[in-house]
Every structure is written in C-alpha cells, then in structure tokens.
C-alpha cells in the first residue's frame, strides 16, 4: 500500500525535480565546506544561508499551492502558520541560550528579565527540549488551522470571504505578537540565538546542515504533496476547486477534504518557518504581516498554480529577483513586484510552468498530428483547461 502510494507519487517529472534537488542539497554544502575560500567554485556561507532561505520559502509556496492550486482555497494568511512554526523554533533557540544572555538568567530569556518577569510563562515550558519544539512546530500551526478550518469550512465560508478572514487572522496575530504581554518578545521578537542541538548557529557547518535540512524537508513535503494530489483524494480536491457545489451533491463531504488538506498545508508552512528562523537568526511579528502572505501567493502564481514544481520555481525565482533588485535598485523593487502581480494575473494565468507545459503539449500534439496525417492543418485550439 505504502509503496504503491509512493510509486504513484513519483513519475518522471517528479523524479527529475527530486534528482535535481538532491544534487543541490549535496553540491552546495560540499562546495562550501570542502573547497578553499579562494577557489572559483567555492560557495560563500552567506550564499548557502540565502539559498537555504529560498528553500524554506519554496516550502511555504508549496504549502500555499497545495491549498490554492489544488483545492481553490486562496489563503492570505499562510505567513501566520509560517511565523507560528518559526516562533516555536525561536522559543527552543531562546531556551538554548541559557546563561549566555545579556542578563545571564539561566531560565528566563533576556526580554523577560527586561520586563521584570520572575517566572517563565507556562507556554514556554518544554521548549528547552528539541523534540518538544519540533512537535510544536507541527502542532501549533496544525491546531490553529484545524480549528479555523473546522469553523470556516463547516459554515461554507469560501472564495473571497475566506481569503479576507484568513487575512484578518494573520492581522490579529500580528497585533497580538506585537504586545509585550504575550511573552514572545513583542516588537523585537526572538533573536540572539546561540546553539541549535548543541551546534553553533553561526558556524559554517551548521549553516550547511540547515541548508541540507531545508532541502530534505522540501523534498519530503514535495513527495507528500505529490502523493496527495495524485491520489483519489487529490482528484476530489480538484473537483472541489472546480465545482464545489457539484462535488457536494455527488456525496463527498467537501469540508472534510478541505479541512484535511488545509491542516496539512499549515503544518508544512510551520516546518518552513521553523527552518527559516535559525538561518536568518530572528523571528519577529513582522513575519505575520498580511503582505508576506500575499507575496507567498504571488510566488505560486508566477511559478504556476496547480503545479507543485511551479510553486518551488516561482518562490526561488521571485526571491532571487528580490535579492538582486533590493541590492541593485532598491526603489524599483516594489514597482517590479507590483508589476509582476499585474502581469502574471493578466498574461500568465497559469504561471511559468503551466504555460511551458501547455506549449509543450501543444507542440508535441501538433507534431503527433503532423506525423499521423501529413497535410492536415493542425488544430490551434488550446487544450481545455481544467482550472477554469
């Protein structure tokens, strides 16, 4: 059963993607660690961290694509799950600082000492253990998504309304995490991390390992998404996306399917956030900003919604462009990003991957037709698009 599940998930394209990902996971840390710094092929550590960040963004994009591309739920609040995962990891990293903080308190993080708190809030218990933090990375976003989805999908809030309340959700969390009373470091968030699992977070080897971990997480989640979308469950999801009422009338419990995929997606976003935090070294309430969630959606739109590879490509491309633009022409980045939103929705509704595969299919069909019946005019009608 499990093998067939996996087997279905791995067709040619997926195998190609995973192969490429594996090569990157092996090559980048190797080029960073094994080659001397003056070697032309040496990858500097900052680049490893940067690419590791891209990979976590790719994972976030994957989770958005799973709900938006395959189930039609446009979430404008996925950054909330990302940030919650990040905070869970950040809390672990804070507890690891121990007595090395500015105030040297063995139990309380610096900002609590600063606020004159004398005991650790109950929700910080357990975060000194990695396994507990890792569990929370999955459980906190998962539980929030489950509760939110339970109410929203059961009362059939869908489409734009759902988008707006997901935005309200992340906005409410943004405001909440800004409060010092919440006990998450308020405005400054959690930072000044020292160790992860006993390794120095600043060390090259740790950075390389985190990069590899991000790559592996991305690969695993890709396989899971692939398995879900290729299964019968995935077909029902697409049916929900394209004709929700009809699917319901056919006897499917639409809300259960939605809830399942929504919760899984939130957990993936949480993992992405958890891997993001040790690499960038800070988590603050800014990660909850509604703009971040919308940006994640545009990554998926650029790459191609409804294609898992597209989400990954979109995230990496857009973020690479962001890095380049903000360094070279800082004023124009928002123009470029805004233009990208407009351009993609108007002219590339299927995204890069979707458009390429469509054209590919068209060309090969034409070739096929030419081979079979020479002399016939090939049909120029576009392939029916299941997404509409």
């Amino acid at each position: 059963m499990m093998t067939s599940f996996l087997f279905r998930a791995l067709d040619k394209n997926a195998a190609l993607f995973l192969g490429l990902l594996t090569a990157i996971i092996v090559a980048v840390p190797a080029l960073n660690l094994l080659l001397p710094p003056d070697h032309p092929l040496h990858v500097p550590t900052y680049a490893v961290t940067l690419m590791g960040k891209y990979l976590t963004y790719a994972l976030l994009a994957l989770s958005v694509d799973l709900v938006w591309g395959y189930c039609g739920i446009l979430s404008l609040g996925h950054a909330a799950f990302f940030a919650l995962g990040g905070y869970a990891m950040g809390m672990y990293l804070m507890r690891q600082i121990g007595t090395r903080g500015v105030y040297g308190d063995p139990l309380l993080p610096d900002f609590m000492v600063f606020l004159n708190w004398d005991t650790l809030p109950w929700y910080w218990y357990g975060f000194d253990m990695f396994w507990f933090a890792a569990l929370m990375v999955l459980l906190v976003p998962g539980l929030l998504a489950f509760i939110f989805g339970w109410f929203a999908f059961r009362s059939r809030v869908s489409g734009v309304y759902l988008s707006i309340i997901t935005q309200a959700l992340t906005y409410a969390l943004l405001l909440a995490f800004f409060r010092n009373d919440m006990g998450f470091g308020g405005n400054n968030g959690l930072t000044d991390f020292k160790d992860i699992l006993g390794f120095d977070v600043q060390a090259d080897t740790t950075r390389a390992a985190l990069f590899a971990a991000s790559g592996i997480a991305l690969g695993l989640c890709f396989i899971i998404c692939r398995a879900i979308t290729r299964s019968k469950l995935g077909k029902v999801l697409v049916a929900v996306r394209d004709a929700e009422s009809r699917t319901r009338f056919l006897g499917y419990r639409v809300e259960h399917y939605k809830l399942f995929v929504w919760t899984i997606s939130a957990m993936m976003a949480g993992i992405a956030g958890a891997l993001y935090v040790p690499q960038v070294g800070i988590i603050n309430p800014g990660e909850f900003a509604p703009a971040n969630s919308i940006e994640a959606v545009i990554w998926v739109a650029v790459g191609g919604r409804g294609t898992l590879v597209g989400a990954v490509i979109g995230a990496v491309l857009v973020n690479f462009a962001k890095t380049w633009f903000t360094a070279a022409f800082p004023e124009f980045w928002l123009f470029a990003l805004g233009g990208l939103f407009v351009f993609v929705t108007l002219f590339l509704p299927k995204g890069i991957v979707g458009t390429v595969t469509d054209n590919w299919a068209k060309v090969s069909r034409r070739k096929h037709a030419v081979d079979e019946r020479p002399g016939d005019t090939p049909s120029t009608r576009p392939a029916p698009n299941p997404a509409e």
Partner: protein
Amino acid sequence: MPYLKSLLVVLCLLILPAGSAHAQEDTESLRPLINELAGGGFSETEQQLGVLAATGNPGVVPALEALADGDLYARKSDGVVFIGERDGRVYKLTDPLTLEPAGEERRRDMKKIKVNNGLRRVIRTALGTLTLMAPDPATRLAAADAMFKAQDPGSIEALDLALTQETEPRVRRKMEAARAAAVLKSDKPEAVKLGAIATLEALGNRDALSVLSGFLPEAQGAEVPATETAMARIDKTLAAWGAAENVWYGISLGSVLLLAAIGLAITFGVMGVINMAHGEMVMIGAYVTFVVQEIIRTSAPGLFNYSLFMALPLAFLTAGLVGIAIERGIIRFLYGRPLETLLATWGVSLILQQAVRSIFGPTNQEVGNPDWMSGAFELGQMTITYNRMWIVVFSLLVFAGLMLVLKKTPFGLYTRAVTQNRRMAASMGIRTPWIDALTFGLGSGIAGIAGVALSQIDNVSPNLGQGYIIDSFMVVVFGGVGNLWGTLVGAMTLGVVNKFLEPYAGAVLAKILVLIFIILFIQKRPRGLFALKGRAVDA
C-alpha cells in the same frame, strides 16, 4: 489677618465704580502708583497694593506678578520701578506697564522691593480680584479656575463681588463652583456649607468630586451624609458621561471606518471587485490635500482655511481617474475571477505606494488643520474636538450623498441594473462597460475624498492606505456585501464595540478581539449583517 487684608483690597475695589471697563485708557497714570511701591517697609507696600488693586486696572497685573516673584526693583537714583531679570553683573530691565525692554542697570544701582509671605497672599488676592474683573472672559475663567483649585477661603469676597457683575454663564458657573469650594474650606456655618455642597453636586464633574472627597474627612454633623450623597450622585453622573464619551469616541472611530469603507462598499459591495488598492485611493486623496495646501501656502496663504474645500473635488477627480484607469487597464479583463482581481489590485497598490514614495519621499507629510477644525468645545462633561466632530458629520454627508446618487440619479439606476443583471441591462441599452468604469471611478473617488478627511487625523505617508484596507474589508463584510446601510451600521457597530472594549482590554487587544469577533461572525452569517437575499446571492 490675611482675611482682613483681602477685605481691605475688596473694599478699595468697591469704592471705584464699575472697575474694569474704562481701565485701559490710561496705564501711564498708574506709573506713579507703581513707583510708590518702592517706598518704605512692608506695611507701606501693603497699603500701596490696596491702592493699586483699587484702580481695577489689569495693567498692574505684570507688576504685581513680578512683585510676588521678587522680581520688582527700584532704581536708586530716581526711584523708578522696573521688572528686572538678573544677568551676570547687571539686571535686564523691563517696563512694568508697557512690558517693553528698558535697558540694563548695574546690580548695585538697583534696590529690590522686598516681600514677605503675608504680602504675597495680599498680592495673590489682589491679582485674583483684578483678573476676576478682567474684560476678557477667558482670563476671568482662568482666574476662577485657579481659585477653584486653590480653595482659599480668603477669595470668597472677591468671588462674591465678581459674581455681582458676571454675565457670562460659563464663567459664572465656574465662579460659583470656586466659591463653593472656598466655602467648604472656610469656617462658615453648616447651612452655608450645605448650600456649597449642593452647588458642587449640581456641577457634577471630576473636580467637584475631588473637592468633596477632600472635604469629607472634615465634614461635621449633617454635612457628612450630604457630602456622601452628593459624591454618589456625582459618581453616577460621571459614569453616565463616561458611557456617553465612549459612545462618542466609538461613533468617531466608526465614522473613520465608514469613510474608509464606503468607497469599498461600492467597488467590492456593489460591483463585487476585490480592490486591494482601495487604501491607496485614500492615500491619493490625502496627498492631494497635501499638494493643495502646499500650493496655497506658497501662493495664497489667506485661503488656507478653505484648503479642504478645494481639495475635496480635486481628490475625488484624481482618485476617480486613477480608479477608472485601473478598471479599464486591468480589472475589466478579470471580471468573474475575483481571486485574480485581488492579486492584480494588490500589485497595483504596491506600485502606487512606491510611486508616491518616489515622488514625495517616504516620510510623513505635514497636512495642517484649518482653524475651524482645530480646537475643542465642551458638551457637559465631554470634550469634543472639532476635527472629530466634522469628520463624523462629513462621513454621514458622504454616505447620504452616495445614497442619493445610487437611488435618485439615472447613473445610480444603471449601476444597480448592471449589478443585478448584467445581460438584461445590456439588452436594455445600458453600456455596461462604461457603467463598470464609472462605478469603479465613483468608489475610488469616494475613497479619495475620504483621504481628504483622514489626512486631518492621520499621518500622511505612503503607508496611509495600508492601515485602512483590512479594517475596510472587515466593515464591508461584516455589514453585508452589496448593502450600503449594512456598511453604515457595520462601521458604527465596530467603532463603538472597539471603544467599549478598550478600557478593559487596551487598544490592541480590543482590536484583536474585534477581529476575532468578525471571524466568528462570518462563520455564523457568511453574508454579513444585512445579507442580500434571493438568487443573486450565489451568482
């Protein structure tokens, strides 16, 4: 003793008929009287003070104030009196009547006019009396207020005298309160004090409460229960006013929400277009105000008070044209694909923000309040600022105007027709694409004039719109999409709920609670407070 002195001063005042009216004519005639202050000991000074107070002339006030502060000096050579400020080895002199600089004098050539505590008290009473009779009501009010705070039994006579002449009701009330407060501190008989308690109870504000609670430990006999009931009543009045104040703040916040959301109620509510660039339309309106004010400042500063009236049509046109451009350029290709519209308009909002940032810079721009919008007035125990009040009025006017346009004009009729049944409207000869563009322009233009109003209470920066977009969506969704009345009720409800939560939960938590409330509310009523009914709902 001080009692007697003040009595003396007041008596001197009484001798002079109708003290203050013709006082200012001849300040110069006061000069010899002021110069007389220099002569002799404390008792002579005191007598001379009585004479000065008896003039009833406010011109002597600076000299008396300086005297109380020990800043009044006499020149040894000719005995002329000046206000002096020590500056190294010299005194900088100021004329005590005209308040103009009068050169410098070496320190040893000047003699300080000495005062003691007894004299200071006499001066204070004299000053109080003079200011209580001042021609300017604001000065009289301030004097009465100071006496209310001081609660000096010695001021009772001065107040009684002033009350005989006072005609301004506001000042009168304050004087009565000051008198009552002073009576409570005095050794008057119980009946008089009971009257004072009643006066304070009628006043019913926080100050009266603090005076009464200060008096309670000293109260005797029948005064104790009277004070207690008065305090309880004042507490009750204050609670009622507090609630009224919360409602007012809520309405004020609601009117801001209404202004921000009402344009969205057109574009999102009526047309079904998710316009994430809506906040930027508000921002454009605010920047139009800024530009108009800049032009007025440089070319015609006299027109500044009318700047908002000029900004209104310009903001409407600018934001409306930008809106039409967005509709024609982008949104019309995306009808029927709401989620894509959402993303594209978000892109537009980023571009507009960055464009404004590139043109005007990322910092806050200064937009001034015209005179008629600054200041505040008192309504019972509440202070209402004029800018908040005008914004409430303005938001309701905009709402009414929009209702009129939609219900009473041909354009409104076409809009409603296209909204309800596009194909039918098209077959009746309505140019639906035009109506789409104009309706979108209307919604954007209204956001623009909202920007003019919001520029008066918010920072005008490129991020202005971002702060309102989520709130606006909340209001529209909460009120019910496609229903303007819903938007009105929704905005006011959210505003008032928010302000009532704030005292208990704090501003941020109140906002979070409201957001959670809306999220839960949408679960219960996915179509908002006033849902459209019928077949159109699922279309």
